[in-house]
């Protein structure tokens, strides 16, 4: 009865086994071959995903208090295109009340969100505030008001204009643990103007995700 190595389980003959050099060598070679092939199949690049929102999107304006949005899912910007995805991340529907980017495996992730913000075209209105946030939402309950803690945020009080070549790219990154069961990213854009306007139209937006650990 052959024995097996402690880690990988490769078979080898014992002195008490019948002498079968060819058979023993074949068994060992095939075992090593299968093991190394399986390892090679598992060698991939770091899991990554990128989702994109195409076309324009009208973010509700005026803004409401940053930390107590009455309907958080209306601020969540929608994504509709999966550029690549080797990280087992689910993009929920672009419908209002969905719009979450939901990693299905636990681990530490780094996420980078971008939003292209053109000038406000409403005559007579001045931009007071532009804000972009990444929040931690619940993928199993996407319309839930709580909890949606802020993971990262960036704001700007200067209007988009010629100094930006009429297109400001707001970018925001964060590293955080996601549990693989409920945790989902939401990307939220807010604007406030004087006087108030009904909406602020933004352009293309992305969220790129790198999975940094396996648990």
């Amino acid at each position, binding site marked *: 009865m052959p024995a097996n190595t402690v880690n990988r389980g490769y078979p080898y*003959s014992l002195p008490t086994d019948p002498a079968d050099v060819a058979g023993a060598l074949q068994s060992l070679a095939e075992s090593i071959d299968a093991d190394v092939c399986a390892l090679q199949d598992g060698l991939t690049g770091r899991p990554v995903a990128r989702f994109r929102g195409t076309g324009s999107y009208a973010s509700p304006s005026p803004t409401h208090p940053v*930390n107590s949005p009455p309907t958080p899912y209306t601020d969540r910007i929608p994504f509709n295109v999966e550029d690549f995805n080797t990280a087992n991340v689910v993009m929920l529907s672009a419908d209002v009340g969905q719009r979450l980017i939901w990693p299905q495996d636990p681990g530490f992730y780094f996420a980078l969100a971008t939003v292209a913000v053109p000038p406000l075209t409403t005559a007579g209105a001045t931009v007071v*505030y532009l804000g972009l946030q990444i929040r931690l939402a619940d993928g199993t309950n996407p319309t839930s008001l709580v909890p949606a803690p802020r993971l*990262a945020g960036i704001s700007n009080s200067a209007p988009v204009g010629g100094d930006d070549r009429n297109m400001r790219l707001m970018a925001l990154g*964060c590293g955080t643990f996601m549990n693989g069961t409920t945790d989902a990213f939401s990307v939220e854009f807010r604007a406030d103007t004087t006087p108030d306007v009904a909406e602020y139209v933004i352009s293309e937006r992305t969220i790129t995700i790198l999975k940094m*650990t396996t648990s």
Partner: protein
Amino acid sequence: MPANTPRGYTYPLLSDQADFPTQIQDFAQDVDTDVQAQVTATTAALNAPSARASHSLNQAINPSTFTFVTFNTEEYDNAGMVNLGVNNDRITFTSTGIYLVEAQVNFAPNGNAVVGGRKGAIVQNLSGVSESHNTIPGIQTFATELSITSLINVVTIGDYVRLRVIHDSGAALNVDARSISATKVSAL
């Protein structure tokens, strides 16, 4: 006398006494050890040293005063990089390499007559290394959120990064939500 391949696999020579069970066991165990080492290295590569610390309660920041913000929650740490009981303002690197570091801070809305600007910086302990920072004007009626992202080359174990803020508002301002994270993207 058996010989070894460059990876250390043992094999008998013609001049060796025939002892197949011992020789195949020796070979199998050598391969086993080598492959297991590759599995261990691969697993380590897929689990980058990573950490995140945060705080949600107010910290008062005096005007025109460089201040390191503090953290009270260790959200994640798979490499012993956060020790809030010893230093509550930093991530300390426990292995060398290239790290993706991100920090964010939220200044409370400004109630002061002088609004001023806000600045946040990821600051290393290394002298001669430029900080990574972001500076924007403050807002009187809304919170001012700053985010900084940087790639940092850590050459010495024990080096650390902190989040430093400053503002020139008319009086002290609170920062509330703030965090700092680091994850290793490459070993040099």
